[in-house]
């Protein structure tokens, strides 16, 4: 390493530009080599070098007013960026400083516990599929520097045996007070029948410390923990700490870590933001594993389309009764969760916003009814609980990306709870956070979008809408209320025929409507002046992921030179990228295709359900290329699709913090 460094002086210079020269990263790094062993030490300087220019732009908006927003990305050329960040961080950090080193010593060997970070990446889309992999496997995989996605759960599980072994166990006592800052006191406060501070005890202590650290670190993205004043004095110590602290996160992060001075935290965070790979259902072993612990007993569809083997496809209609009968067996399941899950399964709740709000409200119920079990801490236990609920939801219906974002937010909030709060305070804080998320990110955002979008509706316009998007509907109704004279063409598609409901509501309000099906879209496009579409998610390459058929409508509109306006709340933006509609999608009930309600003459497929050659494919979503999109209306204003990654990056922290 040192030799390498010597040979490559340039990177260091670059690095110095962002981080003060006193950091002297190279020596410290080489020092920290030994503890690093868990993570592969690799090309540090070049990598960080290449990254650093990318992350420079200072965040233009910091909504510090909302919560104590530490601005993790701020690349201020302040000497010691880490102390700066620290200042914004939770007050508990100062307490931690002293207790760090002992904990760190074990860090490398025990499974990392960067709780939140892991939860985040894991929850984004595929939810709990990975969550509960074997802890044993994880532990074994760690030293070699490979990664598993399940450290959260596994650490929790790994801890359990230890605690059980303890007859009385300090660990329980020390762990129960939610704040981990009490750790220094914990040994003293715990009345110990055994004089010897056993390994297990120490271990437990360290675990709790680590959890606290992770909690402090992850939400803001790996803030270093020393208070500014202290930093000045004990700089070397702190650096040591930061590096060590990073170790667990590095282990979690998807890519191998390059650690470098203050860069580390940012990079790590960036990596954490990178979406975790989704569950691929053509991976047999994983599917088996997932099946074994799944609550919902889904029978897999027998006739699966070859192209979509990587997506789950189940026989619809079978699970509902089964799940209902299981209600009493699922004791850990909160009834609110259960109810919402069933509603997802039955399709009673659909639409990105509705699903997200229902989920958040169910979580709110859970939090309200939650009481920390003995020998657990609220943040960790609640997060684990929520993860299990999320996996239940995922089994009922794959999560939408907006839900993934909401879950990520929620976990972040939980992890960031100040440990000094009592349980009831924590709970109420979480509840208000959820309320604020719903209000600010969904309700208020919708209102802003409506304001923006309806300014684009002119007298005499012919607006084309597809399917049923609640935001678009609000835009139309609001424009109508403003007295604008326009016509609406509602385009619908099988099998859901969501447009009918929209049409009903619009007609009831007296909006002039034309109803047609998606095949006729090129027939009606001649008279259309604007196309308004909703979206399930907007991906960071500008791709709009939405109800299947949206891409068709947008394409035809593009071909007819009609502007396409997407209305989408910014919380639905996702940093994932996607090129086509095949790689990630959701498969609906295939039987819905064969049946055409209200058409007795169309019954060709009534009796072919068992013919081997015929498969029915009911895609739920498709990806509209950014080329077809003229404008995206979000709560941050009207942007071109190319600006989506900017929003995703600049406001990501806001999302998390509100």
């Amino acid at each position, binding site marked *: 390493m040192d030799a390498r460094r010597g040979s490559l002086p340039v990177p260091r210079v670059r690095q110095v530009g962002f981080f003060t020269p006193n950091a002297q990263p190279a020596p410290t790094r080489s020092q920290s080599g030994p503890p690093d062993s868990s993570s592969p030490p690799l090309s540090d300087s070049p990598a960080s070098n290449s990254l650093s220019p990318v992350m420079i732009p200072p965040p233009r908006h910091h909504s510090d007013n909302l919560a104590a927003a530490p601005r993790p990305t701020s690349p201020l050329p302040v000497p010691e960026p880490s102390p700066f960040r620290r200042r914004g961080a939770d007050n508990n950090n100062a307490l931690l400083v002293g207790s760090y080193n002992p904990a760190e010593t074990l860090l490398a060997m025990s499974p990392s516990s960067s709780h939140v970070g892991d939860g985040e990446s894991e929850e984004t889309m595929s939810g709990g599929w990975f969550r509960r992999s074997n802890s044993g496997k994880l532990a074994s995989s760690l030293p070699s520097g490979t990664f598993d996605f399940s450290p959260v759960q596994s650490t929790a599980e790994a801890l359990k045996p230890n605690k059980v072994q303890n007859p009385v166990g300090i660990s329980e006592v020390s762990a129960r007070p939610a704040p981990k800052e009490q750790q220094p006191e914990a040994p003293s406060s715990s009345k110990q029948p055994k004089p010897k501070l056993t390994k297990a005890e120490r271990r437990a202590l360290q675990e709790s410390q680590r959890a606290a650290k992770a909690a402090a670190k992850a939400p803001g993205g790996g803030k270093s923990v020393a208070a500014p004043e202290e930093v000045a004095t004990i700089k070397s110590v702190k650096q040591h700490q930061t590096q060590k602290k990073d170790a667990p996160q590095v282990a979690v992060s998807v890519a191998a870590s390059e650690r470098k001075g203050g860069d580390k935290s940012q990079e790590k965070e960036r990596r954490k933001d990178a979406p975790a790979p989704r569950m691929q259902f053509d991976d047999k072993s994983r599917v088996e594993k997932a099946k074994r612990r799944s609550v919902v007993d889904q029978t897999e569809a027998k006739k699966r389309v070859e192209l979509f083997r990587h997506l789950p496809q189940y026989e619809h209609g079978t699970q509902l009764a089964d799940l209902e009968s299981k209600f009493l067996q699922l004791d850990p399941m909160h009834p609110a969760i259960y109810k919402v899950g069933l509603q997802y399964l039955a399709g009673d709740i659909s639409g990105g916003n509705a699903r997200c709000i229902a989920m958040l409200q169910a979580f709110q119920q859970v939090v309200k009814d939650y009481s920390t079990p003995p020998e657990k801490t609220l943040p960790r236990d609640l997060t684990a609980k929520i993860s299990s609920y999320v996996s239940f939801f995922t089994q009922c219906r794959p999560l939408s990306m907006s839900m993934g974002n909401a879950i990520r937010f929620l976990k972040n909030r939980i992890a960031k709870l100040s440990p000094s709060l009592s349980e009831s305070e924590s709970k109420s804080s979480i509840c208000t956070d959820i309320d604020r998320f719903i209000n600010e990110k969904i309700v208020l955002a919708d209102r802003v979008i409506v304001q923006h979008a309806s300014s684009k509706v002119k007298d005499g316009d012919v607006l084309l809408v597809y399917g049923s998007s609640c935001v678009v509907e609000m835009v139309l109704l609001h424009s109508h209320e403003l007295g604008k004279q326009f016509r609406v063409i509602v385009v619908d598609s099988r099998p859901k025929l969501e447009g009918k409901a929209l049409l009903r509501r619009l007609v*009831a309000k007296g909006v002039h409507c034309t109803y*047609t099906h998606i095949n006729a879209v090129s027939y009606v496009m001649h008279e259309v002046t604007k196309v308004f579409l909703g979206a399930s998610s907007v991906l960071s390459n500008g791709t709009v992921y939405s109800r299947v058929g949206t891409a068709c409508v947008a394409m035809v509109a593009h071909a007819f030179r009609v502007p396409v306006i997407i209305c989408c709340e910014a919380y639905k933006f996702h940093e994932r990228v996607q090129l086509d509609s095949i790689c990630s999608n959701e498969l609906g009930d295939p039987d819905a295709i064969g049946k055409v309600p209200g058409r007795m003459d*169309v019954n060709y497929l009534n009796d072919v359900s068992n013919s*081997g050659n015929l498969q029915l*494919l009911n895609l739920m979503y498709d990806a509209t290329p950014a080329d077809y999109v003229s404008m995206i209306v979000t709560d941050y204003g009207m942007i071109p699709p190319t600006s989506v990654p900017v929003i995703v990056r600049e406001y990501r922290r806001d999302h998390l913090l509100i």
Partner: protein
Amino acid sequence: MPGPQLLVDEFVSQLRKRKVEGSQATAQLTAELLRTVISQLRAAEAPILIETVRKFGRELIAANPFVETFVLPELSVGNIVRRVLRIIREEDASGVTDGLPSDGDNQETADYADGQVSSADVLATRRLLRSPSLHGLLDRVSNAHTDDMGGKRKAPADKNAKAWMLKHNVMEAINELVEEISGCHQQIAEQALELIHHNEVILTFGKSKSVMEFLCAAKKKRSFRVYVAEGAPKYQGHCFAKDLSAEGFRTTLITDSAVFAMISRVNMVVVGAHTVMANGGIIGPVGLNMLALAAKQHGVPFVVVAATHKLCPLYPENPVVRLNELKSPSDLLQFGEFSECMELAPDSSACVLNVVNPAFDYVPPQLINLFITDIGGHNPSFMYRLIADYYSADDFIL
């Protein structure tokens, strides 16, 4: 002549009631009807034949007058009438050339001048037939004029023989036409192997017999997968998918809205058409334009399988509206489904809700990569040339 008139009336009523399904059946029935009509004609001189066929043709086409009913007629009726007219003209011309030597033999002295006129006549006719140029069009008038003069001057005996010959030849040619129509699918299917390779994924839309035959022919040698878009208001894709799977194809039925999502994994789009227009555009089931656009965007070849009897010598003008047919809204909305909403509407004087349910779609030639007809594969830009081969410029407007 009650016989032919009766037959024609019967066929017209069948067309009106839409008892005849499919362009191939229509074309074949039309050709057979015209054959019967011609065979029953006694005085079989070319102009009379032409006039008769044209008259009946008008009646047949008027069975579904598009302008009044806004129902897109089966254009193959008109196409076949034009084909028959063209056959008569051609046989007439060749009969004249065949007759030339006999003219010379039998009545050298008397009709020498007449022969000369005839030969000039023949040349003009030939030019007309071979070149569909403006030049030929201008020649037409003088040609008809001389034709009349020539006809008057001819001896009656010779006239009879010639008329008989002409009628015979025309009957022969129409028989060939009928055979050609009935065998068009085989002709098309023969080309399938050259276009479909192993493991291909083919997307098709709605239902088409030509496509079926085309794919079946390819299946004998190759194994490939077929995606079928359902073709919304008629859902003929369901029926087609069922038929295909019965034939042993690995078939997947998708919704029309998933066309764009799937097109990126498709190697070729093969569709049938209702009509092929003179500019190389096609009229097809509604939704085809969307599919063609998606195929174009993804660079997927868009292949139209159509027999020559679907080739219409008309150029489309505002085809999306004018060559279309608006179906009943009941395909989309149940009767009475929205009646309560209509009453709720504050402004009851105006119609608040319209339902648009077109049956056809126009695909412009630039979205089409290839036509597979029973006489080979052609570019859309080549269609005008085929039209010149098959139809006489005189008959474009009947």
